[in-house]
């Protein structure tokens, strides 16, 4: 047993660090670390840098331009990315539709879409959820009727993250209503510029715009945009869902958020002393830091198991629950740390290029919005209740 990295792994970490130190734009990193909004341009700028380095497609086989990292290397990349303030990767193209196209797509689809994803030419979004069907995907209602050379699509998708930036969407649609729920679903690739598509941004609790509704009204989609076989979409969707199960717990993000919190608590005063020296508050921080330390080791144990050829099981879902709870707790503490200043909603300070006087601490403005926004962590991507149901099946077998 050895919980330390091998010399090769350490060398890789050095390589990652020196790349990030040299190439990660400071303005982008500052936004990420301070929980501020990133623009589409920010994401694209960073993606181009990554692509140039050959490190953008970390989950693709190398024949398609991916990078062949081991689970431990991926983990090192993830940890260092979070530490340096790399923007979270927008997964819909590179990590979601691409693996499906690689595994199930036609040769033409591979040749057309994969290079455009790598180059950043296409921005993908996901059309899975529908109003009235959150975690219960199989009950979806968006219809696609086969008219020979095209499908006619009608229906509505929702919770489409960053759909406002996207020019492509991959959708689960119902192509057959005669069979039982999961059997009549197909997987379509749709150009967002097709007539009949409307995107309506959803304003969220924090005042921001991150998710959208997408409406389809008699949208013509060429049949060549079908992935794999008609009515087999559920298989592809499931493949995608199980494709990547490590990293969901957001351990690296929690570590970055904890550092941020501790620095903040070192600046905020309570009775004239830094808040981090207050017994109550320092113990609140300590408890979370301890939980995170343990969860971090659990994460490493899962990665080592995957590295050894195993499949992550119940531990992975348990860690997803634990990890999101930890991150939410850190967000909660950060909001608490600024006391009365959690109340002001200083929208202009959410932008990094704000150059006025800060109302209070320079990092204060995004904290309450970020806390509210991150309530999503325990809801999206398979709610924590669903995760616990999954674990139940695995460990109880009932």
């Amino acid at each position: 047993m050895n919980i330390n990295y091998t010399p090769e792994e350490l060398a890789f970490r050095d390589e990652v660090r020196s790349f990030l130190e040299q190439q990660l734009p400071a303005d982008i990193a500052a936004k990420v670390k301070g929980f501020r909004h990133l623009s589409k341009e920010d994401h694209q700028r960073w993606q181009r840098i990554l692509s140039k380095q050959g490190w953008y497609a970390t989950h693709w086989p190398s024949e398609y331009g991916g990078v062949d990292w081991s689970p431990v290397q991926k983990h090192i990349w993830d940890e260092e990315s979070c530490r340096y303030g790399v923007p979270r990767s927008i997964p819909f193209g590179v990590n979601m539709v691409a693996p499906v196209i690689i595994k199930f797509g036609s040769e033409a689809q591979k040749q057309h879409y994969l290079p455009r994803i790598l180059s950043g030419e296409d921005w993908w979004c996901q059309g899975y959820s529908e109003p009235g069907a959150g975690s219960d995907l199989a009950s979806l209602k968006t219809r696609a009727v086969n008219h020979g050379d095209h499908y006619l699509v009608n229906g509505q998708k929702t919770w489409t993250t960053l759909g406002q930036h996207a020019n492509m969407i991959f959708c689960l649609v119902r192509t057959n209503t005669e069979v039982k729920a999961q059997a009549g679903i197909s997987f379509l690739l749709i150009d967002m510029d097709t007539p009949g598509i409307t995107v309506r941004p959803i304003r969220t609790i924090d005042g921001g715009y991150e998710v959208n509704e997408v409406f389809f009204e008699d949208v013509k989609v060429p049949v060549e945009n079908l992935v794999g076989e008609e009515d087999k979409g559920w298989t592809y969707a499931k493949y995608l869902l199980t494709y990547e199960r490590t990293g969901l717990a957001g351990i690296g993000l929690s570590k970055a958020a904890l550092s941020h919190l501790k620095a903040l608590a070192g600046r905020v005063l309570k009775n004239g002393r830094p808040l981090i020296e207050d017994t109550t508050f320092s113990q609140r921080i300590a408890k979370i830091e301890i939980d995170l330390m343990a969860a971090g080791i659990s994460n490493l144990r899962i990665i080592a198991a995957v590295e050894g050829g195993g499949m992550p099981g119940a531990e992975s879902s348990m860690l997803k629950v634990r990890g999101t709870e930890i991150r939410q707790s850190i967000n909660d503490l950060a909001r608490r740390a600024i006391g009365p200043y959690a109340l002001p909603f200083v929208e202009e300070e959410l932008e990094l290029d704000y150059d006025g006087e800060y109302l209070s601490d320079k990092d204060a403005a995004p904290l309450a919005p970020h806390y509210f926004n991150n309530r999503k962590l325990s809801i999206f991507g398979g709610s924590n209740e669903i995760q616990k149901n999954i674990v139940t099946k695995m460990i109880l077998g009932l």
Partner: protein
Amino acid sequence: MDFALTEEQQMLQDTVARLVRGEYSFEKRLGYSETELGFSAEFWQHLSELGLTAVPFDEELGGFGGTGVEVQSVMTELGRGLCLEPYLQSVILGGGLIAHAGTAAQQEHWLPGVASGELKVAVGLQEPQSYYNLNDVQTRAEKTDAGYTLSGRKAVVIGGHCADLLIVSARTSGDERDAGGLSLFALDPATAGVERRNYPTMDGAKGCDVVLNNVQVGAEALLGDEGQASAIIEYQSGRAIAALCAEAVGVMEEAIAMTLDYLKARKQFGVPIGQFQVLQHRMVDMSSELEQARSMAILSASVANNEQSTERKRILAAAKNVIGRAGQFIAENGIQSHGGIGMTWEYSFAHYAKRLIMINHQLGDDDHHLEQFAGLLHVEE
């Protein structure tokens, strides 16, 4: 022992409830929130016309002579509608400070306006460094021939953006966190040297930070005896805490009713999600938190206007602690039970959740009041 409202109290509460139901739909509220004023001038006037802004004041001032229980009735219903009007700030806290500390002349000068809703008061007791310790005051009031010169900064003054009168605490003597040496001043926000940085708040209201740059005020601006304000601030903040607890209960009741409805209506995997035992028990836990909060709102209302005592302090600290914890529990679990829809701006639940969390940042959070309560533990022994 009788927890029922009197007929008069029930009528009062019904009046507010009717008004809120009629004029404060969720859609209207979103609109009010986006105006420059940040609330409904019309609704405020209706509150005034029905005598509701006068509830806590003595009858000779045109008031209703209402105690903590009457205030509780009003605040709970305002909470139910997430009402944005400055009732707590102006009527309870501003009016309370003037009535408590003001000379007869000051009371006559200001209170009828406060009671009628014409004069909107905002109160600045916090400072950037004060966290929730209201004795942590750096703002100085230097005595001059004509009165005082005020310099400093008051933080997060809810309602300050549109107030006709500002009441601020300032130090006339003593060191930064001394209880002694604090004084209160009432001033016109238009006075030279008063700068306001306005902002909306997370929960849809508005407020400001107030910067005081050598602000010259006359001796008549002093509210209460010089250097003696700490106990008055503590007492009146206590009244405001009781009122805030009542508001919180109104918010929680609506949040829970909404969640219950959602559990019954929303289907997943073919059944209402309320069939899932984990969601059921969570709903029970939320309801149980509400029960605790209700009890503390009642208890704090019953002591709000009592003479100051260790027991009153204990109860008010306990109440705010319970409200803070219950509010966060209900906000977070309510969102979780709703799923994504509970996080959207267009659905009202998110706004109830935000108000509950933000109430915990007003007048001291649950940690602050736990400390206060723990500090009084030995007295009981």
